């Protein structure tokens, strides 16, 4: 039977039962690969429940540095869940390996003759070595990591170093964990030929990068961006944004002398209230944000319209998941683009930010507070479950200590004294952005009535159609101004002989980058642009104009970014070709390749069986 061989280029998948403590063991494996200097990208595929349903952890190891989901099965399956065993066995690539707990014999019907079965009596070892029931369960996981270390040649010191870091301050736990690793390691050495053909080898492809999830980066970005009020309602996959904000705020934002907190977190009764609180706090001069997912955006829409029209800063982090309705709450998608861009009734448009890495989650969240106050409008950051809840290899976070917060056009008492008559909605500078005041600033000047009804330039209620139109047109002018403020798109190396352009954003980036490399090797040259914000600026217009065809890669059914580009940039539909994936799993390079090859060279492509 064939035995797969590869160094630093394969996929390991762990099949576990949700709630059995497997995730910390599995991340130990990932961290070990990372510390060996090998690029790695893990993905947690989990159910919407607390305990008992199948969960998977898919780890791609790629010395070339491709961090997108590879797809197409796995080379090594660590099959720990009898419930999903049948499909887990099927998913292993021919010539690959399946590690399983042989304490109970494997059902013969599950056997395949084209893969290698590696039986380890995990429960038996655990029962023998540990007495406590919970420990037996937990250490079973650590034992298989030890075995895996021997099989793929992880340096044992890397693992013990990680255990030491993990249990700093709880030293008592180090010895039993190391023992569990040793038990697995030794069993594998004694019973199998170690290492396998699929193995790891130390390299230097990680550099100074860090391993972190996007939601934590957003939470930290909010701390650095000066947010003081977080109002939210729990919803997967956004909850860990506020969790991270709270965790770091408790470390970094507490007065050392008094213990008083320089922040406030309010768990609201629903998403409507969360957005109301964010608006109230920003209106009153505190930087405030919320984090939610698609259903929350639907509920917040009314308030988003108010903030747009009354011109109140707000920051909303939307960690997208598969919709519509409750959809697949624990699967990823980029499907809130249109509902976020035009959230609320009437003519509304919102500024959107599209981060692609944890570093960008950090930077863009911090920037969002500047943008919200400079533009006096909601800033919606569209991240997703894939970016938010999985660890990613990312450039380290950085902060310039010389940076100051851009609070926008806010008048203080002295400035108000110098003004004859304050008009909240007077476009003094001609950029569509007016001057605002914070309640309590001046005893007799600068007060005004904030309202969602139409008003004149002095914030007085009016039903005068001309004044209404004047105000609506100024808001368009402001949106034009926003183009200079929002993050510019990333333009990749441009070729004169390119056959077409490719546009992508967010978590489609890694898969797109990999697909473009493969196409280039095949002689298909494409120019690429990554969108980082809406409104789109001139670079985007020019890029589309320059190419006869533009592929738009995104993760939703209806090609929402394509629609937005067409609606806002006056582009003929024929030239915009959608490249889509919306099955709830991150898009893969293979999916992109199939679509682009098929479009450019329809005759040469043979149908491929849908990958798993």
């Amino acid at each position, binding site marked *: 039977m064939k035995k797969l061989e590869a160094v630093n280029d394969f996929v390991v998948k762990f099949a576990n039962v949700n709630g059995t403590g497997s995730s910390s063991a599995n991340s130990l494996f990932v961290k070990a690969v990372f*510390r060996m200097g090998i690029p790695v990208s893990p993905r947690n595929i989990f159910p919407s429940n607390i305990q008992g349903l199948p969960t998977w952890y898919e780890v791609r190891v790629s010395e070339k540095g491709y961090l997108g989901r590879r797809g197409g099965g796995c080379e090594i399956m660590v099959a720990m869940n009898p419930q999903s065993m049948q499909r887990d066995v099927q998913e292993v690539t021919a010539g690959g390996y399946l590690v399983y707990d042989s304490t109970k014999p494997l059902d013969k019907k599950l056997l395949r003759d084209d893969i290698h079965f590696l039986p380890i009596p995990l429960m038996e070892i655990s029962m023998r070595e540990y007495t406590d029931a919970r420990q037996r369960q937990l250490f079973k996981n650590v034992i298989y990591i030890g075995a895996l270390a021997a099989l793929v040649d992880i340096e044992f010191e890397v693992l013990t170093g990680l255990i030491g870091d993990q249990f700093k301050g709880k030293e008592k736990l180090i010895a039993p964990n190391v023992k569990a690793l040793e038990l697995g390691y030794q069993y594998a050495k004694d019973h199998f030929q170690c290492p396998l053909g699929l193995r790891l080898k130390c390299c230097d492809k990680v550099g100074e990068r*860090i*391993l*972190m999830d996007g939601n934590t980066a957003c939470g*930290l970005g909010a*701390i*650095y961006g*000066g947010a*003081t*009020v977080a*109002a939210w309602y729990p919803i997967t996959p956004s909850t860990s944004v506020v969790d991270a904000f709270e965790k770091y705020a408790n470390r*970094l934002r507490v*007065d050392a002398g*008094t*213990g*008083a*907190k*320089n*922040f*406030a*977190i*309010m768990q*609201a*009764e*629903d998403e*409507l*209230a969360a*957005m*109301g*609180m*964010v*608006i*109230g*706090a920003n*209106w*009153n*001069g*505190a930087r*405030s944000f919320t984090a939610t997912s698609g259903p929350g955006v639907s509920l917040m829409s*009314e*308030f988003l319209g*108010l903030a747009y029209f009354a011109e109140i800063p707000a920051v909303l982090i939307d960690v997208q998941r598969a919709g519509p309705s409750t959809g697949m709450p624990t699967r990823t998608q980029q499907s809130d683009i249109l509902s976020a861009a035009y959230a609320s009734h009437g003519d509304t448009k919102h500024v959107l930010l599209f981060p692609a890495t944890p570093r960008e989650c950090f930077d863009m969240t911090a920037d969002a507070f500047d943008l919200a106050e400079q533009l006096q409008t909601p800033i919606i950051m569209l991240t997703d479950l894939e970016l938010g809840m999985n660890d990613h290899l990312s450039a*380290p*976070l*950085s*902060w*310039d*200590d010389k940076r100051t917060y851009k609070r926008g056009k806010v008048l203080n008492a002295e400035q108000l004294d110098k003004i004859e008559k304050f008009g909240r909605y007077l476009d003094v500078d001609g950029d569509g952005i007016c001057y605002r*005041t914070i*309640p*309590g600033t001046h*005893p*007799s000047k600068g*007060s005004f*009535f*904030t*309202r*969602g*009804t139409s008003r004149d330039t002095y914030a007085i*209620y009016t039903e005068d159609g001309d004044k209404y139109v004047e105000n609506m047109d100024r808001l368009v002018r402001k949106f034009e101004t926003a183009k200079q403020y929002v993050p510019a798109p990333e333009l990749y190396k441009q070729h004169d002989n390119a056959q077409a352009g490719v546009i992508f954003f967010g978590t489609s980036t890694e898969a797109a980058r990999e697909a473009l490399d493969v196409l280039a090797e095949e002689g298909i040259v494409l120019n690429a642009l990554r969108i980082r914000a809406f409104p789109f600026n001139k670079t985007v217009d020019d890029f589309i104009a320059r190419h006869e065809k533009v592929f738009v890669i995104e993760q939703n059914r209806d090609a929402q970014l394509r629609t937005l580009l067409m609606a806002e940039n006056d582009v003929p539909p024929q030239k915009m070709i959608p490249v889509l994936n919306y099955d709830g799993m991150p898009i893969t390079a293979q999916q992109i390749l199939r679509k682009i090859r098929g479009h450019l060279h329809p005759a040469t492509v043979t149908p491929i069986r849908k990958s798993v």
Partner: protein
Amino acid sequence: MTYVRSRFEHPSATPNSLGYTLRDYEGSLSTLGAGCGHDSISAAIVRACYELSIQPHRVAKLSGIGCSSKTPTYFLGQSHGFNSVHGRMPSVATGANLANRDLLYIGVSGDGDTASIGMGQFAHVVRRSLNMVYIVENNGCYGLTKGQDSATADVGSVSKKGSANQYQPMDLASIALQLGATFVARSFSGDKAQLVPLLKAAMSHQGFAFIDVISPCVTFNNHKGSTKSYDYVRDHLEATGAIDFVPMREEIVTSYLEGSTQEVTLHDGSVVRLQKAGSNHDPRDRSAALAALREAQKDGDILTGLLFLDAEAEETHQFLNTSPRPLNALSETELCPGAAALERINASLR
């Protein structure tokens, strides 16, 4: 009659201790119907702020949508106001209060805005004990959309179109009591002598102060058969006692018969005094307040006055242990941990 009020003959021209006249607390002209109870409430708010010598710009007025929610334009013209969206004033007030704990927050809502579309937000702002005054201008109907029944309309109360309401009413004072409000009162827009001291006490209270003010709609709900008409309300008023409010720093000069009054001292030293006048109500007893409301309702009466007051209560900022300085006043140096701290975080992620 309060001690403060009795000092002035022409209050509109006489400046208060901060030098503001009554006029400084007024807003723009009302566009509600002539005789509308809401305008009386606005006038009472103006007077209460004037008498308490509150700096107008240190007040934030917040409202939702509806006739009542329009009224913040008609008082305190020198204060910032926020007319938000229907039923959502409590969340906006919560965010505003978290941002700056030093302002006085006056929320004005209606029975539609609070008891129907805003019931959820109302319940939760009470639970949180947000430091604010929450006034419901309660007329039992939807004025702006021409008089439909609201959720506070009594069973059997007849609408202007002639149909009797069949659905159980929400009693907002009882609900506020059940949800833990630390100041609960009910009043009548036509009873300024009661409403002004109640408002002053509510403004001085630390925590959530709720006042349900029956405020007849002259246009859509002031006819025979309605239980929210001027005539009906006047005929069925029953009070817990007359209220006096003695602000902090002022001496109590009026004397009362022993046993005829109850005094509660607020956190800032102000004193609320209830003259019992035939009633035995103890405003420190939450259960008694609920029972008294139920008793009055049984007889078709409307119990007004101070129903409950807990002067020792804690408010949201104490639960959260937020900085004594307003969060909106904190500077970058206090908010941004800086590059060195970030480097340490990076190191922990390798």
